[in-house]
């Protein structure tokens, strides 16, 4: 066996929520029998942006906020890969928020783990876009699930909490399966507290509301999901669970001619398309 990088060393503080995220991802990939060489983990900048170093897979460390467009490039050119994009709330909701909106719109086959700790931990404690509004805060907190619900074309919107590992495990598998089945973009926000700069374990444990715990909750009804999320949030709760699931086909399947070999596996020699190139050249002939 060729030795590859040692994926056991983490940079996180003891008690960081990210350990749970990483362990859940690794066990879900193993249980779903996704081969490491067919898995790619792409992560942004921040404490969450090191998770690719701790999974046995191909890994990529993106620019701050740009993990989604990079992951889209991978997803479209090699749809055979299982793609996990990951990043923090700063990465996905601040500097990369525009890309999140457009990725919702495109519905590419990948899982996006947005590890939300409501703080900029790596830079030592500044407010993030999901920071709780306080009397000195000039801005309201941002909710990615509501954002996703507002955009037509979203197919999988879920929120987990590292303090509820069973639910996180179930949602992680559901997200991976959604993407693997070619249904599109599985957005999984994970409340993953920063024990050093914003220890929200107790606060969040008291506020999370698993929408799916209610048998009458219909996760396929976008309008009702929106209403329920709004209702829970207004009441001071944090809605969790698989909040919305919709029909969809992933972007690569929609834009590629059926049966075409993926761009990454296309022949590069000119002979493969020589006749077509000649015909195209003839269109410019004078």
């Amino acid at each position: 066996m060729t030795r590859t990088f040692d994926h056991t060393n983490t940079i996180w503080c003891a008690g960081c929520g990210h350990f749970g995220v990483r362990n859940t991802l690794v066990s879900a990939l193993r249980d779903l029998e996704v081969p490491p060489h067919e898995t790619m983990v792409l992560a942004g900048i921040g404490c969450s942006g090191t998770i690719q170093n701790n999974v046995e897979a191909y890994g990529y460390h993106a620019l701050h906020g740009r993990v989604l467009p990079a992951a889209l490039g991978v997803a479209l050119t090699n749809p055979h890969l299982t793609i996990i994009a990951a990043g923090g709330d700063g990465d996905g909701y601040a500097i990369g928020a525009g890309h999140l909106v457009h990725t919702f719109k495109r519905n590419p086959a990948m899982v996006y783990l947005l590890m939300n700790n409501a703080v900029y931990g790596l830079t030592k404690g500044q407010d993030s876009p999901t920071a709780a509004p306080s009397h000195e805060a000039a801005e309201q907190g941002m909710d990615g699930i509501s954002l996703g619900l507002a955009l037509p074309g979203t197919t999988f919107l879920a929120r987990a909490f590292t303090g509820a590992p069973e639910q996180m495990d179930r949602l992680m598998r559901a997200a991976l399966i959604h993407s693997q089945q070619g249904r599109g973009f599985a957005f999984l926000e994970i409340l993953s507290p920063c024990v050093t700069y914003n220890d929200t374990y107790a606060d969040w444990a008291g506020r999370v509301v698993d929408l799916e715990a209610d048998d009458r909750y219909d996760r396929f009804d976008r309008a009702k999901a929106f209403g329920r999320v709004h209702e829970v949030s207004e009441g001071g709760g944090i809605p969790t669970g698989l909040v919305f699931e919709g029909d969809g086909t992933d972007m690569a399947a929609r834009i590629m001619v059926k049966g075409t070999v993926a761009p990454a596996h296309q022949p590069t020699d000119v002979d493969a398309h020589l006749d077509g190139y000649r015909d195209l050249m003839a269109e410019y002939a004078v």
Partner: protein
Amino acid sequence: MSKPKTIIDLTAMVAGQGGDGSLTVISILTELLARRGYHLFTSRNVASRIKGGLAAATMRGSVARRGCLGDSFDLLVAFDQEAIDLNGHLVADDGVVIYDASDGPLDRTSLAEAVKVIEVPFGRYAVRDLRRDLFKNSLSFGVISRLLGIAQDEAQDCLTHALRRLPPRLLEPNVRAFRFGLDFADEVGLGLGQGPWCVDRVAREEQLLINGNDALAFGFMAAGGRFYAGYPITPATEILEFLQKHLPARGGIALQAEDELAAVNMAIGAAMTGTRAMTGSSSPGYSLMQEGIVHAGSAEIPLVIVDSQRSGPSTGMPTKPEQSDLDMMVFGGNGEFPRIVLAPGGPKDCFDLAVTATNLAQRLQCPVIIALDQAVAQDARTIPYFDLEAVEAEPGVRLDAAGLSKMAAYGRYQITDSGVSPWAVPGTPGGMNLITGNERNEWGLVSTKPDVRQAMAEKRMRKIAALGDDLPLGQRFGDDGAEVGILGIGMQTGVMDEAVARLQVSGIAVAGLQPRTLWPVPQETLAFIAKRRRVVVVEHNVEGQLRRLLMGAGANGDRLGSVRKYNGTPFGPSELVAALLSDPAFADNVAEMGIVA
């Protein structure tokens, strides 16, 4: 009535408001001259808006191959007075103006005395008799065909060919409009053979009439390029449109991103799967992409980036050419990383250098930048067919499962003599590795250890050193033994060629060089300068960025003259000749040679 003059070099402009269809008239005229075997050069001059704003389409048809417009317009078709006011002074003394007199007679203040004017109420005729203003284009072509002494059948055939994509219900009234034009010509004494000109018939093999953006996109595709992402921006949009149209049928993808930041990162993602990927933009969009370009340089990702430069700074003049991003392309971005900048001078270069860039990116695993300018990007000219059979896609240093199995250990950033590390792309069994823009060890794990940092920085930079002179050579003009020279890139190429030829005719020997590799500055360029007493650098920017770049690379600044323009218009051949002769050292050296200009 004097005998018609055989015109072997015709520069023409059709001008009016945007949406008047000036481009249509030029495209019919180019079809006509192409059939007579003339070489063609077409250019356009538009405002950045969909309708309205003065728009001009220009062309040159010549028996000799030319890479720019002539000094003045032999023919100006003007759809309104504003077109005359703005362009009248550019009409040749013996030129012809066809004026749409629908709104009244022409004020010819801006025209030279001898210019012949034909006033036709095109718009009024077109609306009255054909119910649509746009038919004035075909009407005006009827008159043009008589000016050039072309028989009806041949002219009509050109018209219907150039408009072949129109539905029959629109084509038919265009043909009628064309015949109206002929009738009108008869009325004003321009019967067949009564016009001032006739057109030669010369033998020329079939060629391509293509602009730089299309040729570049074609070259990328032919070199195995299968992913492109861009965001619409003048004058780079044609690359996106070409690839959106032609890549999918060949198993590729061209994507319109939400912004330039996304575009460059999508291309980076695609490149990481081993797909040959490119992104492109124009100046302000390129400046947004710099973060991604730097990242590709650091993370060692093969990526081609196009900058179709337009006039800056900021949003500048979107439809006007400039070469003021040279500093940005060569030096822009944070930190230091290996990069190559190539500079095509016309559509053939665009095709060839797109192939080279795509291969170099794979070979070196770093960003390769292609510097266009609006003129190179959007001007079209006749060139020989692309040599498709000669296109080779070099694979780069890749690792497959078999190769990996022979290695005890594999990390993405293995230190090598060439600076290039063997690469296993995702999906390769056993090749799991880490890609990062942070400083890292050979595993791709972040490291700030001083010795690791130093070794990695040096490894990256070795890629360029290891390449040596294996980069595209420049194009030479004129007399290589001459004591004085002229040097320029991109849009200067065609006009330099013609200026050097004219000087030569006057007995002044000049050597010309169009470097095709801008960065690293090749030995060839420095040797060209070192060999001469004076070399004038021609460029479109305020500060003389190219000259400064050459001096930074070791060229003796005392020998380097500078001719610059930055008003949004290209040099004309006579203008460039005059500018060269006004360089005192250039003129002195010419005089010393005993030649009187």
